[in-house]
């Protein structure tokens, strides 16, 4: 169903340019990796705090607010560079199981981060029971790990 769209993407000039260049993919991928480190840190700061670890002396909402711009900033870089990587091999992605696993978990992880997790983090200590905060952190970590692991696996499948 989506194949014509993927075909169109892979026929675009940008896609052709990236896949024909010997270094473009490597450079985009490096930026993707650098943003991965930042988003990893930003996600961990808040999830550790929700688990009752990490910056325990700080109010949860404070940690959430400090981490938020780095989370959103690195997420934007991830999405832009990720789309660049996707463009260069759109047809390969269409037939790649890890790619679809990654896109599904990415959609879930982002939705969760901007709705439930954000609400719980900003609600303040008194409003949500610790057990639910921990559950939110675990779900977040599992979802983002799924994104990272399946993303890495796209590169291992021919």
């Amino acid at each position: 169903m989506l194949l014509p769209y993927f075909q169109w993407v892979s026929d675009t000039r940008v896609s052709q340019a990236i896949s024909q260049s010997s270094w473009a993919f490597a450079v985009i991928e490096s930026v993707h990796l650098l943003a991965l480190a930042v988003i990893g840190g930003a996600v961990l700061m808040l999830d550790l705090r929700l688990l009752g670890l990490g910056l325990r002396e700080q109010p949860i909402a404070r940690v959430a607010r400090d981490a938020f711009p780095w989370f959103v900033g690195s997420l934007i870089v991830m999405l832009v560079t990720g789309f660049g990587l996707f463009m260069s091999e759109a047809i390969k992605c269409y037939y790649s199981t890890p790619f679809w696993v990654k896109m599904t978990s990415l959609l879930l992880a982002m939705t969760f981060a901007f709705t439930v997790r954000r609400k719980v983090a900003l609600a303040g200590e008194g409003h949500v029971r610790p057990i639910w905060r921990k559950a939110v952190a675990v779900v977040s970590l599992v979802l983002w790990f799924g994104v990272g692991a399946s993303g890495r696996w796209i590169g291992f499948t021919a």
Partner: protein
Amino acid sequence: MSLLPFCEWLAATPGSIALHESVYMYPLVESTHVLTLCVFLGVAVMFDLRLLGVTFTTVPMTQLKRRLGRWMTAGFLVMVVSGAMLFYAVPVRSYQSIWFRMKAVALVLAGLNAFVFHRTIDRRIAEWDADPVPPHAARLAGARSLVLWTAIVVFGRMIAYNWFDCDKQPQPRIVNALAGCVVPAEGLP
């Protein structure tokens, strides 16, 4: 002194061959190396950004260290072990990779930067612990760390590409010299 004979010996050990030829083990080790980046470098970047005074400015530096230092150390250990395994799987090509060598140099510089930081401005942390924006020397250490780790990640990623591999000749003389390629002299039979 060349470590090439050692790397050749290492490459011939059964463990190295097994890891090199494994279907799942090598990708698993590599994925671990890449994903632990989130834990180790993720936390390290937050430290550096705090040193620069751009985030978590209400959190004292010592608190950040006390609460997150162990996560960074644990992540670093996983990075070192998985990284050593990746080298163990492909010793000769890694040793003769210009990217690997540049990564090694940048790693030493990052270590040196951390060492100097601990020996100097970090000694007087009581004076600036809670400052939203730490003193110049601390900010400089944070900035240097960010630059060096960026280089380490990029160089590390580039090891996977074979543009400058020794078996891809001819290469510019400087590349062969820096990568330690053993190339027959031109004009000889």
